[in-house]
Structures are given as C-alpha cells and as structure tokens.
C-alpha cells in the first residue's frame, strides 16, 4: 500500500533504526520489506537455546495459583461494571519487579472484562453462568441509550435465517459476539511508533476528501477517524504503563513491549472468537540480533523476552457463555503465531527466534496458547524441521500448515487467523462466518426441506424422496437444490452480520494497523463433510432403504446392499472425489451471491469442537451414523472409518481442493508414541518425511498429537495429575482436562493411528 501510506519525507527516527538496512519500508508502512531486508535466517540446530530466567520463573510461579483455581472454579473474576476499552482499566501487573513485559487486559490477571458493544445478552448470560451479577448501569446504558451489534443483526435478520439458526443448520454465527479473525499488524507499532502511523492514516484520510461521498467513502472516512482515535488511545494506554510508544522501539525489549501493547489494545477493544497475533517471531528476531551484536543482550535475555511475552499470551481471557463454550471449548482465543515458512526469494524465514518461540513450550511447559503454527515448507532447513517434529513429540502443542501451498496465494508475510485462515498482514481481513451443517442439509434434501428431528419445514418445501430406496441421481439433484438455498440464506445472513458489526462493533485499533484499502474475504464454512461423502457413497454403491415415521418423515436408513461401500479416509477415489466435488459445488453456490463490501468468498472445512454439537443436532444419516453421534472434526474422516492407517487417511484429505477452500482445511491426527526399538532420532526422521509427503501431495493442515489412549483415559480419571496436558483438536489446542466430558470421549474415540 505504497500509494495510500506514502510519506513525503523520512520521519525523524533518531537512533531507532540504527544499523537496519533501509528500503521501501523507510518511506512507506511496509513491515514485510523491513523483514526481508533485515532478517537473519538460521540453519543450525537448537543447541544454543537458554533456560528460563529467574525473573521468568518468578512471574510464572505467581500465575500458577490462578491457573489451579481456574481449573477448579472456572471464571475467577469479572469487572462487570466497565465495558472494556483501551483506557477502561488502570495498569495491572502480575509481579512488577520481575515482569520485563507488562500489560494486562484489566487491572488484575485473570479478571475478565465485558464487551457489551457486541451484545448485552451474551455479557449477561456469561456473567450469570460464571456466578456474577450483571451490572444495572451497564444494562441501562445498553438497553436505553446504546444499541449493540447483536441488536442490529436481529433487526436485519429474516424469519428464514432465524429458523436456520434455531434448527442448527447454520450455527456459531458471530451475531452476538466479536467476529474476530482480524489480525492487526501489531509489528507496525514497534517499527514505526504511533506518531508515524497516525501520519500515514492522516494521509490516507486526506486522499478521500475530494472523493464523492458515496456510502463507502463516508464509511471509510468515519472508519479512518476512528482508527486515528484508536492509535491515540493506544499511546495513552502505553503511558499508563510508563511507556512512550509514539516513537519506534529502540531495542529488543521495547520492540517486544510495543508489539505486545498493540495486541493488548486489540484484546481490550474486541472479544473476537479468534484474536491472533500474526507472525512476530522473525520480525522481533531482527531487534534481538541487533542487540546481540551490540552486546546489550545475551541469549538468556533473548529467551527471557520470548518466555515473558508468551506468559502474557497464555493468560488472555474473555467472558463467554456455556453455548459458546460448547462450540469452542477449553476457553480458546487463538493467539495464533506463525513460525517458519519461506520468503519469495527462496530464503527460509526461520530464525533463532523461531526456535526460541518453540522453546517456550519447554521453559513454561506445554500449553494450548499461543496457538503456535508452523508454516511448513519442504525447503526449510532440515534442522528446524526436525526440531518441530521433536517439539510435537514432546508437547503435542503445534499445528502445521502448508506454506508451499499458501505462499502463491498470500505471499510471504501472511498470518493465520484462528486455526487455518491465512491473510496477508495489514492488507487483508475476513468477515468470519462459522459454518453450516452439510449433513443436515442432505437430510433436508431427502425430506423435502423438513427438519429430520423436529419435522418442521425449515427449507422451502420441495418433493421429498418417495420410494423405499435412495437413488443416487435423485438424491444428488435434490441435494443440489437444497445447497443452493442454503448458500443463498447463508450469504444473506453473513451480509447482515458484518454490516452491523462494522456499524456497532468496529475493530478500530486492529483496523488502524491495516492499510486503508484491503482485501476483505467473507469466510463461509462447512461441517460434516465426511458424513456427507460417506452417505452419498453408501447411496451410490450400496442399496439404502429408508424408514419413515408416521408423519412420513424419513428418520432412518438401512443399507441392504453392499454394506462395505467406499468410505472417506482410505485414499479411495470413488468416495474422495465425492468429498472434493461437494467442497467445490458448495463454494460455487456461495460465490453466486454478492457480499457486503464486495468481500471475496472463501470457505473452510473446519469445525473446531463443534463437530460434537453438530452431531448431537443431526439425525440418523445414510452412511449408518446414528442420531447424535459426533461428526468427524474438520475434514477428518468419520471416527474409525479410515481403517487402513494414517497414510491412506492423509492422502484422502490431501485431495480436497484448496482453491475452493481458501479459508482452510483442518485435519487432526493422533499417533501413539513410538515402540521401544525405534530410536528418537529415527522417529523424528520419519515424521519429517511424512510431513513432506503429506504437504507435497497438497495437504493443507495437520494437527499432530503424539499421545496414547491410556494417558488420555487416565487424565479423565485423574485430571489433577495432568494440569498441562495439551492436545490438538480441530485447528487449535486445548488443555485436555478443560474439555467437557462429551468432548473428551469424542477425542478418545477418534481414530488413533498406532504408529507413525
């Protein structure tokens, strides 16, 4: 965004940029250019890493009682009176003497804030569920004087959308809470300081003065004004902690602090489902390298910065409702940080700080947050690949995404929002849209639009299946019509949501850390893909008889033909192609409908933990799945059906087309630890090769758990023994013991592939 952010002259930066190689980044806001000109790639191994410092350990020790209490009691404290903003709370500390990076969401650790701008109902339901009283003055303000995002959306929804929400065919829409999935380019604050960013925003605003005030131009002017106020507030927030962030950071400690302040501002202003931090490790490494060269920092000090930043990222908390927790369990907030990948010149963006970030999992123990995401490229240094595999084996805390697949789409400075949503940092955002239940849609198609559980007419009335057996062509034709309707209704709902979100709950700080002119995507999603594929396969290759209830509703299925029909997850093209074609077909239907702000349509195959909830709300399906049984998470095959080992399972998932699922395709694998006679080194070699093969074949994402079933079963019985047991579920990691019992059972019942 050179044009909009261009500056007439070089700002007076004093010594802040000393020894940095100049480039376009000096005259425009361009962090990517700064990184590629100054990064120091590292090809060695992990031997240089340092232990946690005394100060780090002291801070960590202070936090342990909070973690323990929270496990027992849930939400520890809430400030129910003060709607959260950057300046709503005074400075807060954990252990002031030992914290080298400061800043809390409220004035105390683990005290949660409220975000009524998203919706008062969510706030009050969250408070009640946590055992706190809603505040009458907040209630009055947001019922009498101020409208919320949630109120706005329900003013614009249609009865049809309300029906879809109620029946569970569309679930998890961000119509009552922050949409999230926006990543401010928090690095900009460290590199430029807020004065310079304000100057760039003023320039962007000035360019609009001569433009005719259409809706979009007026909206942009107002947004830019909001963004500028947000940057000013951010600087004031930093002042509460005694820091002047109006100028660029002058050393590594300041660079960490400035970047964290920017992120902290974002999580004080918005309670998005996913509040990712972006791709900071190789950026901050440049500051560390400079300080190391100047002799003002040593390795222990460098690791201390990472450890203490990560401590902060592990104690982010939002107040949620029980319904929300059922969809996204374990209190996640997806402070996703991307590590690794390649730049467009073919150099690996692997630095010593890539290692340091991973090393926090040893210094502080395994944990779900920050959601560390390895951008895997087969070209990355072997030593780093091996280190990643080792960390996975030891902690099960990493996820992997295919940089070689994404780089052609998004360049070399993208981050991952939430689990699998790639976006160019500071240049792209998404309108998050949860997901639809495609398995339910298939049942609607069979039943002429009636819900298979309630019997209600939810989709428009069409001709239901009339015979005793399902015919593949007939079902496909009906399913196509249902998907058309669903896609239309879904885009309709999303347009309403994001119009109102921009209007009532605009993320002014996160957007201030973007260019003015950005790419907006509208991210749709599907759940139940493997159920649909296996069902259609059963209809095509078997002979499925239907059973009706007295009202004529088809409620059960019996395969009377070849029962062993092909199932997704076995590298069998006959069914894998059905799965791929469903992804493409639904995407094409989505693309037919114009979006709010001309956003580009994308789609994910991702469920987070909602596969359990979706399964609960879905009747018997033609593949033999029983009513209430959970779906496979994300793009995973159904539990136990990928019966020929992980290789076959991986190869099936790798076939799903990324071009029609650019918001990501999530796949989770659990493998048991190695048999005794394989040495650790051999195992890691194998794992590295396996990643290379999976990603080379077009695999997009892998959550890898290295853990055995016995450990998980023991953890259910004795949760206190496993306070930090971390496992990866669809797209993120959770503390296993914080899952609901249902979800714990779901995780255990998922295919465990015995070996890797």
């Amino acid at each position, binding site marked *: 965004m050179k044009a909009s952010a261009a500056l007439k002259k070089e700002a007076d930066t004093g010594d802040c940029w000393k020894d940095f190689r100049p480039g376009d980044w000096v005259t425009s806001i361009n962090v990517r250019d700064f990184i590629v000109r100054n990064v120091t790639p590292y090809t060695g191994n992990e031997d240089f890493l340092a232990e946690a410092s005394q100060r780090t350990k002291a801070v960590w020790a202070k936090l342990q009682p909070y973690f323990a209490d929270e496990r027992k009691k849930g939400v520890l404290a809430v400030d129910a009176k003060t709607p959260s903003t950057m300046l709503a709370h005074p400075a807060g500390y954990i252990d002031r003497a030992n914290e080298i990076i400061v800043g809390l969401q409220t004035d105390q650790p683990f005290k949660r804030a409220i975000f009524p701008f998203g919706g008062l109902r969510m706030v009050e339901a969250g408070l009640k569920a946590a055992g706190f009283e809603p505040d009458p003055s907040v209630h009055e303000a947001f019922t009498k004087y101020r409208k919320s995002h949630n109120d706005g959306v329900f003013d614009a929804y249609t009865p049809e959308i309300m029906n879809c929400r109620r029946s569970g065919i569309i679930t998890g829409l961000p119509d009552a809470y922050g949409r999230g999935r926006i990543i401010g380019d928090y690095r900009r604050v460290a590199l430029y300081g807020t004065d310079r960013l304000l100057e760039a925003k003023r320039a962007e605003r000035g360019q609009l003065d001569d433009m005719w005030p259409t809706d979009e131009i007026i909206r942009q002017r107002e947004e830019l004004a909001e963004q500028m106020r947000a940057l000013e507030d951010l600087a004031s927030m930093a002042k509460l902690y005694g820091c002047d962030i109006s100028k660029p950071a002058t050393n590594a400690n300041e660079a960490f602090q400035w970047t964290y302040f920017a992120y902290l501002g974002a999580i004080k202003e918005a309670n998005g489902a996913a509040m990712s931090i972006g791709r900071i490790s190789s950026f901050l490494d440049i500051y560390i390298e400079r300080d190391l060269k100047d002799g003002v920092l040593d390795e222990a000090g460098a690791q201390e910065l990472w450890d203490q930043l990560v401590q902060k990222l592990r104690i982010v908390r939002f107040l949620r409702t029980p319904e929300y927790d059922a969809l996204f369990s374990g209190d996640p907030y997806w402070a996703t940080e991307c590590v690794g990948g390649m730049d467009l010149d073919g150099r690996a963006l692997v630095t010593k700080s890539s290692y340091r970030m991973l090393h926090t999992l040893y210094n502080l123990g395994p944990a779900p947050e920050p959601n560390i995401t390895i951008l895997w490229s087969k070209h990355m240094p072997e030593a780093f690949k091996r280190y990643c595999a080792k960390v996975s084996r030891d902690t099960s805390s990493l996820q992997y995404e295919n940089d070689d697949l994404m780089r052609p789409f998004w360049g070399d400075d993208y981050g991952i929002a939430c689990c699998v949503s790639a976006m160019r940092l500071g240049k792209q955002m998404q309108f998050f849209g949860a997901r639809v239940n495609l398995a339910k849609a298939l049942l609607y198609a069979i039943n002429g639009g009636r819900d298979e559980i309630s019997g209600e007419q939810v989709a428009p009335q069409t001709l239901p299946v009339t015979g005793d057996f399902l015919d593949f062509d007939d079902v496909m034709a009906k399913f196509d019509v249902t998907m058309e309707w669903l896609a239309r209704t879904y885009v309709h709902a999303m347009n309403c949501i994001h119009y109102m979100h921009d209007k009532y709950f605009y993320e002014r700080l996160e957007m201030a850390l973007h260019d003015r002119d950005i790419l907006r995507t509208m991210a749709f999603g599907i759940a139940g893909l493997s159920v649909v594929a296996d069902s259609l396969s059963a209809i095509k290759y078997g002979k499925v008889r239907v059973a009706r209830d007295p009202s004529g509703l088809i409620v059960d299925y019996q395969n009377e033909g070849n029962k062993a029909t*092909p*199932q997704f997850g*076995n590298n069998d093209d006959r069914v894998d192609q059905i799965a791929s074609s469903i992804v493409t077909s639904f995407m094409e239907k989505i693309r037919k409908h114009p979006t709010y702000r001309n956003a580009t349509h994308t789609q994910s195959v991702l469920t987070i933990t909602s596969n359990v909830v979706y399964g609960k709300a879905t009747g018997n399906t033609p593949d033999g799945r029983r009513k209430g049984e959970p779906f496979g998470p994300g793009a995973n095959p159904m539990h136990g059906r990928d019966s020929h080992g992980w290789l076959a399972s991986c*190869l099936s998932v790798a076939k799903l087309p990324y071009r029609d699922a650019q918001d990501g395709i999530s796949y989770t694998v659990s493998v048991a630890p*190695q048999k005794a*006679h394989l040495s650790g080194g051999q195992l890691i070699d194998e794992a590295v090769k396996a990643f290379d093969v999976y990603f*080379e074949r077009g695999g997009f994402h892998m959550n890898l758990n290295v853990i055995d079933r016995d450990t998980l079963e023991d953890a259910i019985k004795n949760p206190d023994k496993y306070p930090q047991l971390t496992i990866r579920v669809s797209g993120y990691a959770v503390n296993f013991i914080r899952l609901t019992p249902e979800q714990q059972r779901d995780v255990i019942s998922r295919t465990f592939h015995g*070996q*890797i």
Partner: protein
Amino acid sequence: MSTVQALEPGSRHDLRVGISPDAPDEDKIKDAEGAFGYCHSYETSSRYDGPGLRVVLFVSGCLLRCTYCHNPDTWHLKDGTYVSCDHVLRRLGDFAPALLSLGGGLTISGGEPMVQLAFTRRIFAGAKDMGLHTAIETSGFLGDRVDSSYLSAIDLVLLDIKSSDPETYRRVTGRDLAPTLRFAERLASLAKPVWVRFTLVPGETDDPSNVDGIARFVAPMKNVEWVEVQPFHQMGSFKWKAMGLEYRHLDTPPPSRDLVNRVIGQFRSAGCQAR
C-alpha cells in the same frame, strides 16, 4: 472351516472395503495362474514390518496352527476375499509415490504368503515394477516350494522362527521345524537380507535353552540383519472368541520388560544384532 464366522463387512480387517460392488464376479473368471488370490486385509502405515513406512498386505491361508496366533482368521485360504492381482496392484499403486518418498515399500504377511505362491509372486513382481522395496513375512515352512526367481523379487525376508527345539516347535505350531531351518540356511547361502522374528510367549517359548538354540543357529548368518523379539500380546484374542475357537492363552500375560530384556540379552551375547 465351518467354525469360521464371516468378518463384519467394513471392519478394518476386511479387504472388501476396497471393492466396488460393480466389480465382475471374479470367482467365475479363469485367467493365468496367480491372477487371483485370497486376501484378508491391508494396512497402509506400518512402521515395523521392514524399513520405512510399509503397506502390509495380509493374505489368507496358513498351514501352521500356532497356539498364540493373533490372526487365526487368516488360517483358511477362503477366509480371505477373492480378488484379482490387478486390483491389489492398482490399490498399491495409489500409495506407491508416497511409499517411495518415505523410503518404505510393500510387505506381504498373512497367513502364510507362500501358500499362494503364484499370486504373491505376481504381486511382488508388480511392486518391483513400481520401484518399491519388497518384504515377505513367513514361517519358512513352505520354503522348499519357492524357487530362486521368487526370492529374487524380494528384498527382505522377515523369518519367524518360533523355536529351535523340534518338540517345542511342534507343540506350538503343530508342524515340523526342519523346513524352516533349511530355508534359513538357504537364505544365508544366497546372502538374502533377513530379519529373524521371535515371538516371546511366557510359558511357551521363553525357555532359556529354546532362546539360546535359536541364537546359536542364527548368530553365524551374516545375512541376518536383525533378530526382533516380539512380545506376545492379547490383541488377537477377540478373534479366537469370535471364531468360537478354544484359546489356550486367554490368561497368558504379555512378557515383562525384564523377560524381554533377558531374551534380547541372550541373543546379543550370542553375537546377534537384536532388538
């Protein structure tokens, strides 16, 4: 034979998972020798049955009746599914590129692969055409049946030697030991790479002299790359139950870590590379 119950269709042990109902009724087709055979199941991600990642094809038919067998559902030839060699190779071809990248290959196990000599010969030849590493897991009981061209398509033999004592061998397997030892010696003379596998069953094969006998026999053979001690496990017992067979080892525990170490130690002190 009549005691064998059909496997639940679609189970992980059932190769029919991969067969289209549209496929012709292959029973009726007569083709060249070995164009069809009986397969029990396959697994795509074994790490233990040869180097690298293995696709393991389990064929049916075995002449031994090991008391601790964990695949009794592969004893009878017709316990398996009748499939064409082409079908098997097509399926294998789906995995071949990945196997090549992973430094793996195909292992045929069973059952006893040498029961279906012509069928497995064709599969091995097809796998070699794909450039894959090939391995066979065998008791060696039918070793006299295979000619050198059969062995030339096999890169590694996983040879199960259950005992060094003819009496014990007969008690455990119901058959003679001699053919297995003959086959082992022949492989040694051909310098064919071999991993010897010994299943350690407490109270059945764990006698120190039994172990020493195998160790002494194997130690001089330079072609034996590994002796693998495989601890007995109960994962096959459900099959005995499902098939209505009497299972002698219902109460046999897996060997203790100490016992396993003792046996590995015995092999090592005889000069074997053991694990």
